[in-house]
């Protein structure tokens, strides 16, 4: 049992947000796109920037910086939209840059620690310690489902 875990590997798509590297499981990633024109959606939750056209499918895009409460940054030529699977939906996430695809042994992943990451640790699945840096593994389901919490909070705030 122990050994099986020790031998397991994970394949991650690693992207940058501010000074940190984040990883998501490659099987969840459908597409990586250059920044393109985004159509805003009225009255959408704040971190939902709008929708894009991905080969005929209309896909909502969220700004991960906003979602994580990081300061906004201007788009650069490195800015990418990472399109990931979320249940039956595809959802785009705006990130600063996509740096690499990484294969890591599962046993170097440690439980999330608030000390090591600058974002809310409930978004995290773990932290992979590499020789040269740290990769924060995101809990995509939680990151994306926060949408609902957010929407509810907004409504509550409006009513208050």
């Amino acid at each position, binding site marked *: 049992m122990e050994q099986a875990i020790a031998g397991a590997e994970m394949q991650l798509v690693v992207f940058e947000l501010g000074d940190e590297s984040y990883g998501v499981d490659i099987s969840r990633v459908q597409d990586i796109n250059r920044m393109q*024109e985004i*159509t*805003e*959606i*009225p*009255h*959408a939750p704040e971190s*939902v920037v*709008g*929708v*894009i*056209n991905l*080969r*005929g*499918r*209309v*896909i*909502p895009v969220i700004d991960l910086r906003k979602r994580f409460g990081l300061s906004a940054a201007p788009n650069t030529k490195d800015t990418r939209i990472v399109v990931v699977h*979320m249940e*039956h*939906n595809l*959802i785009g996430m705006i990130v600063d840059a996509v740096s690499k695809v990484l294969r890591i042994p599962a046993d170097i992943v440690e439980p999330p620690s608030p000390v090591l990451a600058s974002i809310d640790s409930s978004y995290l699945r773990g932290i992979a310690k590499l020789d040269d840096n740290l990769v924060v593994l995101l809990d995509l389901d939680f990151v*994306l489902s926060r*949408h609902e919490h957010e929407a509810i909070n907004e409504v509550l705030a409006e009513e208050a």
Partner: protein
Amino acid sequence: MLQFPGMTDDDIKVFLVEADEQLQFLEDGLLALEQSSDDPEVIAQIFRAAHTLKGSSATLGHDKMARLTHSMESALDLVRKSRIEVTSTLMDLLFECLDMLRILNREISTAQDSGADITALNERLLDVIEGVDGQEGAGASTHASARASADESACAGGLAGPGDVKIRVTFTKTCPMPSVRAYQVVDRLSALGSIAFSHPGMDRIEAGDDISDLVVVVEYDGDALEPLIEAARDVSDVESACVLQVGHVGSTRATAAAAAAAAAAVASASVQGEAAARSAAAAGAGGTAARAAATAVAAPRATTVRVDVARLDILSNLVAELVIDRTHLSQVESRLAEKHGGDEVVSELNRTSTHIGRLTTELQEAINKARMFPIDNVFKRFPRMVRDVAQKQGKEVELIIEGEDTELDRSVSEEIGDPLIHLLRNAIGHGIESPAERAKAGKPTRGTVRLSAFHQENYIVIQVADDGRGIDPEAIKASAVRKGIVTEDAAARMSDKDAIGLVFASGLSTAVKADDVSGRGVGMDIVRKNIEKLNGNISIDTVLGRGSTVTVKLPLTLAIIRALLVSLGERIYAVPLNSVREIARVELSDIKTIGGHEAIRLRGDVIPLLRLGDIFDLRDADDSEHASRHGQRVFVVVAACHEGQVGLAVDRLVGEMEIVIKSLGTFVGNVPGVSGVTILGDGRVALIVDVPSLVRRVVEERNGAGEC
């Protein structure tokens, strides 16, 4: 949890599709039988349907359905032989059986035992059958034989087929153990029908003899031969599999009865085989039944394939993408032409791009057509409902259906059923008078409800017309005043036409009491809402004492609509063309402010003016409204739905085009004022304006403001 041992999910699906079809045949037949109780063709149709259901449910292993259909078949056989008469008691019994069959069918589709008990129905059917025996002493043997022959075919499971199919299968020369493969082929085929014969025989196959080809005769009751061939080809090392012969290969079972059953089954299996069924029935009556079977088998088979809608959706999506790319391609091409006009390569590109354009258009049309099917699929469930409702109300109603072959998109036909049910119930409940009342008014006691469908440009028009009492505008007004929908004052000033329009107001019903006919508590307001949700509209014409006609106009497809594209600053919005009344150029000085809200006056009408940027809270940094606010004039798109109209101030009219509606998806959810999005020719995404919701918003907002 119901389980059918040995049946795969696909088997069950196939069963359900067939059962639905047969239940419909049964219902159509019963309704027709009620009209003309001695039409042998109709009786034959009902008998065939019961027979086919019996065969397939026995094969599936659904005992209750097999038993009930078996008794029905026996009773119907006696009807067919004119041994029992078609009475209203018998009709009611058969209708009850049909309802029970639907319940049993649902058991299979949901895999849940409903706990329904067929014993009582079965007993009553047997009583009918026994009754014949009691009446005529000599009838006993007839009855016994009727039962026996029916039993026999039930036992044989899928015996009611086109008979036997002879298949030759050859194996590749390199096949290491052909006998194993042969065994597999026989095994696969036996899942589709029972194996009547094989050469070499099973003993040789099992003994592992070296064989190079195999001939199998399968008793098969499917309506397409492909599954057999596919099953055989599926086995490794099979070089070829082909059908050698269809029909009664084996002579042992070629009794007249079996042949007739075979003819009936194959004919009813496909709609196109209907003609063959008739010829089979005729031939069966005149000549030998075996010949009839041959006729039926030789009849052209339906060349249709059932395709999952999800696959069609994917195709539509891809084609829509292709259309966008084509537009892009021609843009690139014209830019190239500007730069390097006259160049050989450019004109070659031009030719190709024109060709691709034509192909894409045709492809799009073909796929749209593939999604269409006749509205008959919706209409066919109405005769029974009309019959039941009329009976319950003590009214005599004839339902006339016209244009049932009018085609529309599947997505529309799924949505239109419930509103139509309501309109039909209304026509019977509120429109058609009781026979006595009709006689007094000098009308025939039997009322007529006419349900018709036809195409008009890009729309399908469905009308429900009755020759009943019509709608009394004064009664409507009185009711509306009583319910506080309008003031007495307003009612007095109201034109008859506007008063009739009040039937669409929520909370208004002229029915004295909420009875069974008013149904599930939905009113005309819900009907209208549903129709408008489909981008359609609904209107009523009525003549007091003569009847009413409700006209529903719907786009042919929900996926594609014509829209007016308008721009506001950088953003482009699509306004569905069916709600655009007119486009006006309005001087800025003509925009008035009434109670804090902007409005324009257009030929005497005061129209509330909306700015989409404000409503959607979307503005560019440099304020997209600049242009419209500081120019001398603005374009106003007057958009309307039943509840009223609004003017939308826009910067520019981009043009009119067909757009493909896409949903925003569950992640974003519903956005007030937006009914969906679409992808434009340049690949950008544009919001589709939901006119009814905007109008409603304005009505609520401004009424509220007015009262404050």
